[in-house]
Structures are given as C-alpha cells and as structure tokens.
C-alpha cells in the first residue's frame, strides 16, 4: 500500500516538474521568438510577397503583378551591370584575399618574437571604421595630391585617376576590399595552422620529407582543407555584400562602372522608393547569399567533425 502511494506521489511530482520545465522553456524562449518573428521572419515574408506587387512607398493600394518585377530586372541594364560588377568584384577579392592571407598566415605562423607585431599590423584594418578609412583611401588615390600617384611617378608611370577611370574604379575598390579582408582571413588560417598536430611534421621529417615545399604539400595543405573551404565561403559572402566603399568613394560611378548589387537595391528601395522592384532585387540578392550559406553550413559541419 505504502509503496503504491509513494509511487503515485513521485509520479505526480515528476509530472509537475515536467510541466514546470515546459512552461519555463516557453517563457524563456518567448521574447527571443517574438523578436525573431518581428525583425526577421515576418519582414522576410512581406518582402517575398511585395516582390510580386507593384507597390511603391507612398502608394495607397497595390495589385499583384506576378513575375513582372523579375522580368523587368532581367532586362534592366543597371541591374544586369550591378550583378555583373558584383560577381567581378568577388572574382578579384576572393582569390587574392584568400591567397595572400594564406601566405601571410604560413609565414607568420613560424615567427615567435615578431608574431604579435605582424598579427596587429595585418589585423588593424579589420577593427578600423571602413568609412573613415575610405576617406583616407580617396586621398591616397587622388590623381594630383595622392602619394600613390607620386610613388608611381617616381617609377616613371603616368598618374592615374583610379576612382574616376571607368576601367580602374572597380579593381581599385577590390584592392581596398582585399586590404580590409586579409587580416581577418589570416587569423582564421592561423587558428587552422595551430590545430595541426606538431608530430605530423616530425613524422614527415623522419620519413625524409625535409623540404618546406614538400611538407606544405603533404601535410599543411590537406590538413588545412576544411579551414580553407570555410574561409573561401565567408570571403565570398563578405565580398558579395560590398557596399560601404561604393557608397562613399564612387557612388556607383564613373558611368556605372562600380555599381554593385547592394548599392542598386539601396538606391531603388531607399532613394527612389520603388519598393516592390527593390524587393524583387533583394530576393535575388538573398538567393545568392543562401547558396553561399548552404555551402557554409556544409563546411561548418565538416569543420566540427574533423577540426
């Protein structure tokens, strides 16, 4: 008798505890969930719906127009140019931003006393306010006053208007993008290099793999694979989101040569107030980001398992 009563009592207590846990869990998750819906999920749904309408900010009503905004984008020379320019920007920033960072990381990794200095030097641009530094870059690249053209003059190269020459504006912005990115990637690579067990190198040395190039190819490169994939994806996303330098230094010019996707979205949505059209462009932007992110989730998973 007594044991039965105790059991039901214990069961009751356990059930009460479970119910309490449920309520606490819901209570703790509610503020964050509400925010998640209001700042992310609901706006996302509205954005997708809006991309199928003809709504402009200020209009009193709107109607659904199907894929009209997307077909318009397909034939819009500004959008096509900005998408092309964005991809071109990624194509310049990605290999150099990753390759140079890898080179610097490998060289810095072997240093002992000077490692701190190099880490600080290369990482400094990441912490600095890019808008403020963009103003400085504008001065550095000035056709008449800038030290970079003065330096080129010493070597005997005629001064160039880096930011007002249509063929140079985008590559110049890409160089600044690389300047801003290398330190960040270097730190990720340094973390990856530190994770490689030292005894692997010792084993390789015993096996007769004494040449630094051999050691790099047989150990460092394969062991760094997951980090490398990861850095490539995050760098692609960063480069794809280029906006600050364009907005401050070139305003998309000269002659549209530095128009990029986010800048076009910004102009259409927040300057011309073509809300529905900007929504469609944003959906395209999101599609690209999601492709990168899916790859990222995949590589993140790999990093968790093997790193």
């Amino acid at each position, binding site marked *: 008798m007594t044991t039965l009563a105790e059991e039901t009592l214990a069961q009751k207590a356990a059930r009460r505890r479970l119910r309490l846990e449920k309520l606490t869990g819901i209570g703790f*998750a509610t503020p964050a969930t509400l925010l998640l819906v209001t700042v992310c999920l609901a706006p996302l749904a509205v954005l997708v719906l*809006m991309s199928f309408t003809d709504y402009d900010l200020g209009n009193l009503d709107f109607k659904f127009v199907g894929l009209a905004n997307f077909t318009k984008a397909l034939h819009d020379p500004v959008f096509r140019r900005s998408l092309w320019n964005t991809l071109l920007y990624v194509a310049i920033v990605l290999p150099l931003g990753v390759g140079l960072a890898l080179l610097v990381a490998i060289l810095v990794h072997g240093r002992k006393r000077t490692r701190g200095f190099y880490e600080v030097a290369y990482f400094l641009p990441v912490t600095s*306010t*890019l808008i*403020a530094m963009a103003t400085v870059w504008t001065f550095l690249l000035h056709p008449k006053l800038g030290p970079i053209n003065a330096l080129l003059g010493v070597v005997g190269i005629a001064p160039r208007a880096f930011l007002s020459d249509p063929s140079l504006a985008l590559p110049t912005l890409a160089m600044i993008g690389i300047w801003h990115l290398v330190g*960040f990637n270097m730190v990720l690579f340094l973390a990856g290099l530190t994770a490689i067990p030292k005894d692997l190198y010792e*084993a390789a040395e015993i096996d007769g793999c004494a040449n630094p190039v051999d050691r790099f190819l047989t150990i460092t490169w394969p062991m760094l694979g997951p980090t490398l994939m990861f850095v490539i994806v995050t760098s692609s996303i960063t480069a794809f989101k280029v906006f*600050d330098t364009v907005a401050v230094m070139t305003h998309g010019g000269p002659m549209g040569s530095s128009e990029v996707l986010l800048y076009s979205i910004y102009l259409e949505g*927040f300057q011309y107030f073509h809300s529905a059209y900007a929504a469609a462009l944003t959906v395209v932007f999101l599609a690209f980001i999601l492709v990168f992110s899916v790859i990222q989730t995949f590589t993140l998973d790999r990093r968790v398992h093997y790193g």
Partner: protein
Amino acid sequence: MNTRLDPVRAAGTPAQGAATVRGRAGAAAVVAPRSPLAATLRRVASLVVVHAVLLTGAAFVLLPFLWMLVTSIKPPDEIFTATLRLWPHHFNAVDNYRHALTSAPLLRFALNGLIVCAGILCVQLLTAIPCAYALAKLRFPGRRALFVLTLLALAIPVQVPALPLYIAIAKVGFLNTYLSMMFPFFLSVFAIFLLRQFFKGFPDDIIHAARLDGMGELEIVWRIVTPSAVPAIAAFAVFSFVAHWNDLYWPLIVISDANLAPPPLGMMFFADAETGSNYGALTAAATILTAPLVIAFLVARRQFIAGITMTGVK
C-alpha cells in the same frame, strides 16, 4: 582522427624513397658545405626573405593609417604640394583637429555610436541568454522548430529584411530615432546559437543541485549558468560592438539627422560637407572616429581577435 592520419602516413611512405634518392644526390653535390656554417647561412637567408615579404605586406596594410596620421598634422599648402614627403615642415595639428571638431559634432557621433552599440548589446544578451538556456537545457514543445528557425535566420543578413522594416518604421513615424537604429539588431540569432553550444556543456548535476536547493530557473540562469559563459559573452560583446560601431547600411537608411548619426554615417556627412578637399581636417576627423576601436584593439588584442573572428562562424 585515424582516418585523418592515414592518408598522410600513406603518402609519406612512397615519398620516402624519392626523398632518400634526392637526399643522396644533394649530399653528393654539396659534400663539403654541409657544415653548420652553411646551415646557419641558409637559415638566415630564409629568415631575411620571410621578413622582407611580411614587412612589405605590412607596409601596404599600414600605409593608410600612417598617411592619415601624418596628413592630419600637415598644413594645407604641404598637403597640396609635397606629395611624397612624410614628415611635415610645419605642424598644423591644432588647426586641423579644431576645424574637424568644430565643423562637425565628431564627439557626438562617437557618443551616438556608444549609445547604439550599448543598447543593442544589452537587449541582445537579455533575450539571447534565457532563450539559449531553454534551447540547451529545457524540454518544451517547439524547441526543435525554434532551433531550426534560428539556424535559418543565421543565414539572412540585415539587408534582406531592411526594406519591410524601413516601411514599417516609416509608417509608425519612428525614423530618426535611436530606437529605429537599434531595433533590427535586438535579436542576435548568432548569440543564441553560440551560447546554446556553450550552455550545452554545462553540467546538469549542478543545475539539479541548484533546483533541490530551491533556486528558481531565472536565478539559475543569471547566477549560475551565465557566469560560466563569461568568455563566450565577452567575445560576443566585442563582435557585436565592432559590427554595429562600423555599420553604415542601416543607419544610412533610417537616420538623416546629423545629431543622431553613428561614426560611419557622421563621417559620410562630414566628407560630403567638406566638398573642397580639406584633407587635413578630413584625416583629422577620420583619426578621431577610428581611434576608439583601434586603441581598444591594441589594449585587448586577444579578446578582439577572438571576438571578431567569430563572424567566421556566423
């Protein structure tokens, strides 16, 4: 671990033979100079090359900072003529900095940045910590769904919901307020994700013991679990602060009042106003607005690098 080692070991064995042959050939070619002296020479040479490469790169990276500082103390006539001269003949620092500080409310921009970053960080932690604890340690209906949504939201940059959020904020009449600048960032799914990972490793026994002692769940979260996550919270704080101090896109959309501008937007207003190329004042302003984070970075280098590279995980 084993599968990871095997390919390397396997690759090592065939390479061994080749390396021995190469080693023998090398020994034959340089029989005498295989002395300690030659080895030292080779080491010194490689060190010189390595440092030459690294220093060249560092010079390129640091050039804008150096030029910013030097230009900010030069008088206008030297800025406009002596293009490759680093050190000024005459100093004009006081004039440049005074001009920058009086013609634009630079300290106000910095204060705005501080207010916005602190506000965002507080709400982010207040909402993310309980949610992360619930996801890590409590069983409740909808837990899996919430976690999947969190992962999904992790992939969406602020530029995506910006348009509907802007329209909503404009309709409510909240443009040009601190709140409008902070609102989209009140929730950090990244903080939830990061802290959930951290809390998962917290021993259940301690939580059970605290419950037996009669502690409420809220008390457990704030007084027992949160203090254990201080390193993760500190790294996240650095990440959040740097990201929002330097953010231009969202403030550019919702703020047109210069008195509310955070540093990047303020710098943009100032640069647009100084249409004549008063580079002395411009670089002085850039120095003032870049200084706080750079100084913080130089003081707390490890925390900064840990914090900022967390975006790598984001």
